[in-house]
Structures are given as C-alpha cells and as structure tokens.
C-alpha cells in the first residue's frame, strides 16, 4: 500500500468531500470506497451557523487521514497563506498544493507551484502537489522537496480519464520509487483501473463519485477497479502484439 511521507495508508483511493447530495451519502460513499484519505478545503466562515464545525465533526467520524487543499488559489502568496491556515485548522502538515494557472482548464501554474512547494517544504509542510504530467516540472517539484506527485489525468471535473498515457508512463518510469497519484479528471472505474495498470500508486476522485446517480455504488465500483487494476499490474501482464496467436493448441486438430 502507498506510503506518503513515512505514513502508510491502507487504501489506494483518496476521496474528495465536495458536491455530495447529503452528508449521509458522503459518509456512505466513504464507507464503501474504503478511501484512506479525505480531501478538504478552507473557506470563509459565513454567518453564525458554524457549518465549518459540523463539517469537521463529520470528517473526523470518517476515521481517515485528512488532506487539506489550496483549491482556487491563483498565486503563491494565496496558496502559502491558505496552507498555513489549513495546517492550524486541521492539525496536519499535509497539504494538497494547488496553484491554478488557467481559469478554463484549472491547469496548474507550474512556476507558482514549484515556488510555493519550496516555501512550504521549508516551513515543514509535506506537500502533495497537484501538477501536470510534465516530466521537467515534476523533477523541479522533487528538487523542491516533494515526496509524492499528483499529476492530473484530465482537467478537474471533466471525467475525461487519462489524457496522456505516454506522459503518465514516462513519469512512472522516471520516478520508480516515488508515490504517484492520478489526481483529477477520472469519470468511471475503468479509468482508475488503467491508472493502476500503469503502476500508479493511487487515484484521487471527487466529482466522479459525488456527481454519480448513486455515489455510494460508484465509490464501491472504483474501489473494486483499483484492486483489479493493481492486481493486473503486479501480475506482470503479457505484451500486446499486432498479429493473432492461437491460444488453443494447433497440434492434433482434426481434419488437418
């Protein structure tokens, strides 16, 4: 099972906590997913209803590791300050670092991401960078102190799956011992299985589960796909070939 900054997590699934139809469905989706990590955010307190406290109570009851994010931050300063606030709020030095560079694709700003990763690592954070599959940027993130990489499969919330198989495979080959997590863009369980077959350590989902017609069933489906895909990877798959090769013995065939 994957180990992030010396913490082993007994699941290959990280699950987001946003957009569920109800808190009860969120909890049921988590239970059936077997997710070991929940992603959360910090947002402005509004009014006196203390929604933040109620949400925190719900997350604590899930019994999983908490990974706060810096979602929506477009500058290094915003991301760093948000991370600092998240560390105090959630009592963890884990941070899913997002520095967004483009409004339409929510593509990470690679320059800001590396700079923020360096600052936060120096402050003792354990940074989980939401990045693209760009090999050079990923090398810079590792140089900055990141001990896990979280490349997108496709833009957040699109459900398009793994858009650059070559890039993801290259990252896996280049960082054989680093935890790699496909973060964002997955829509259906087969895409998660594919990520596992590429040798990825985990996937991070939110929209695919929360926006499914039956979020708990979809969470269950992803959990099974992760097991299937990982088994396929570990079992050393056959090499594909272009021409057919009969699987039934030719020797002894009647009428030959």
């Amino acid at each position: 099972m994957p180990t992030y900054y010396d913490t082993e997590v007994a699941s290959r699934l990280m699950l987001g906590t946003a957009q569920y139809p109800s808190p009860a469905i969120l909890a049921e989706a988590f239970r059936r997913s077997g997710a070991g990590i929940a992603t959360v955010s910090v947002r402005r307190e509004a009014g006196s209803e203390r929604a933040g406290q109620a949400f925190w109570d719900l997350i604590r009851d899930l019994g999983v590791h908490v990974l706060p994010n810096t979602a929506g931050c477009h500058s290094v300063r915003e991301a760093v300050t948000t991370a600092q606030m998240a560390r105090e709020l959630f009592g963890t030095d884990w941070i899913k670092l997002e520095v967004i560079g483009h409004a339409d694709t929510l593509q990470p700003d690679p320059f800001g991401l590396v700079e923020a990763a360096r600052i936060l690592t120096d402050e003792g954070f354990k940074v989980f960078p939401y990045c693209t599959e760009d090999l050079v940027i990923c090398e810079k993130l590792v140089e900055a102190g990141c001990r896990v990489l979280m490349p997108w499969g496709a833009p957040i919330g699109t459900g398009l799956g793994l858009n650059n198989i070559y890039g993801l495979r290259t990252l896996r080959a280049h960082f054989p011992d680093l935890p790699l997590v496909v973060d964002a863009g997955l829509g259906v369980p087969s895409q998660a299985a594919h990520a596992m077959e590429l040798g990825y350590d985990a996937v991070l989902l939110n929209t695919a589960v929360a926006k499914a017609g039956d979020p708990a069933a979809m969470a269950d489906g992803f959990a099974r796909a992760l097991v299937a895909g990982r088994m396929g990877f570990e079992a050393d798959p056959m090499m594909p070939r272009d021409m057919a090769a009969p699987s039934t013995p030719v020797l002894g065939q009647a009428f030959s």
Partner: protein
Amino acid sequence: MNITLNGTSQQTGAETLADLLNEMGYADARVATAVNEEFVPAASRTEHRLNDGDRVEIVTPRQGG
C-alpha cells in the same frame, strides 16, 4: 475603524484580531485567520492589532476535492 472582513467592508470597534473574533461570535469556533494575506496564528490573535483598511479573512473547514 473600517475593515474588510471576508471580502465585505464593515465597521468595527475591535482593537485586536481576538477582539474582532469575539465581536463576531467566533471566539470558540474552529477558525483560522489571516490579515492582509498574512497568516495570523491563533496564539498571536490577542497581540495582533487591527488597523484601518485591514483585510481580514476568517476561514473554517469546508468540503474540498
């Protein structure tokens, strides 16, 4: 004095960040704070004096992906 609290302009008589949290009813709430985009740890709120025009953020745990 006039400050911007969570993006909204408002008047306050609070002299410190801790006073402001009391004024807002957040004294014992699970919140984190920043002033002018700089994080202010919980332990520093009592000493952190507010100035006219400060931009204060008060945040809390929320859903995220």
